[in-house]
């Protein structure tokens, strides 16, 4: 089976490579590009740990072939912080609001939340929960993940996040 040439933009950098058509995008990112931020969780498109942004869509990179991403613009968790290391508002939000415990789901949560906020800059709590329903977390119970996304949404709009009284 012939290998295919693929070219794509990953975190702003142009990359080219030869891949077997059956190579999954998650394996291409992790093994050929050494971008180990996107995680392999369930391998069955359930858990969302492998979520990356592909041409403005959140996708589970365990269920996309690298050849399907030929010509695409991809953002992984490695592409979220600024070049000088300043964290993205979402990364800051997850730190400030304790949005992670073990951290395994976090790269997927953040890349998914990034697209959610691009589409809906000021989501309600319900919209956040619906928007991240393809990402599983087995530690936090989601409460602080929702807060972290609310924190980021507020910050990106130049506001200060006010936690609702419990």
């Amino acid at each position: 089976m012939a290998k295919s040439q693929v070219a794509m933009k990953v975190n702003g950098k142009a990359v080219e490579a030869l891949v077997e058509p059956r190579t999954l995008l998650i394996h291409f990112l992790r093994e050929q590009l050494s971008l180990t931020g996107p995680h392999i969780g369930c391998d069955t498109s359930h858990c969302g740990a492998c979520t990356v942004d592909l041409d403005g869509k959140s996708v589970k990179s365990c269920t996309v072939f690298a050849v399907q991403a030929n010509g695409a613009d991809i953002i992984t968790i490695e592409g979220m912080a600024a070049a000088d290391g300043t964290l993205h508002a979402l990364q800051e939000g997850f730190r400030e609001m304790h949005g992670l415990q073990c951290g395994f789901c976090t790269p997927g949560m953040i890349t998914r939340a990034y697209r959610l906020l691009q589409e809906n800059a000021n989501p309600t709590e319900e919209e956040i929960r619906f928007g991240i329903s393809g990402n599983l977390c087995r530690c936090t119970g989601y409460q602080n993940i929702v807060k972290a996304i609310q924190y980021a949404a507020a910050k990106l709009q130049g506001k200060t996040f006010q936690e609702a009284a419990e």
Partner: protein
Amino acid sequence: MHRTLLLQCTVRQSFLTQDREARVIPGSFDYHRPKSIKEAVALLADLGEEARPLAGGHSLIPMMKLRLATPEHLVDLAGVADLKGIRADGGDIVIGAMTTQHELIGSDLIKSKIPILREAALVIADPQVRYVGTLGGNVANGDPGNDMPALMMCLGATYQLTGKTGDRKVAAREFYQGTYVTALKQGEIVTAIRIPAPPAGHGYAYEKLKRKIGDYATAAAAVILKISGGKVAECSIGLTNVGDTPLWADKAAKMLVGSALDAATVKKAVAAAEAITSPASDNRGPAQYRTKMAGVMLTRALARAKSRAK
């Protein structure tokens, strides 16, 4: 064990018990990315039985990881611009087969003309899958667990099928022959879905019972109805994942026409709908339970459709 059930269980759960390393890498294949429908169907015809069309891939790729599907050639339809788009054509809405669930959800035309389609798309899988999963893939796969087929039967949709020798049209109500068995012939693909827009002021609801986000339905019901002068003038009912194929409950719907959806008539119609189901017993519940849940989903869908009808 029903084949659907077997495949759904296998695809969705078997990773827990199988050797993960051996079961997550698909077999080798050659990749093709045609730019036109003509090129795509010519490739599929020439490559023969070992070729499969690839739409969103969220049914096919999991099957390939399990080696339940081992195509030697994948013909990716993502580069075919003519398979995209949603347009009005007279009283119909025509949707390109590669239109994603996410695009359906975001379409103002769908929201205003066929709101039940948006409602159903929102309960399919999860956000990531909806960005990639297509209407054409969902209806063509022949999995009775998919949500769109029963809805297409309910709406009276027609599929345009295209092969090397040309186009033909098949009604959704005649397309499904068995689990993963459809009217599609070797080398044909679904290229467009034509849906007659329901009448203005119609009531609608898609009610789906599922265990969790991302799950197939334990049972689901689609209802479209038109009420005039307090009585049901038109009614159509589709049922998801309670048989070898999606089901169109035409007898049940006819029993409701002329009624005011009073409790006694609804009860009779729901019993008639339950009678055509033949679900498998699986980890979504025993067959009897799933039949009852189809009835419950239908009862709820009828009530909600009635409340929405003008």
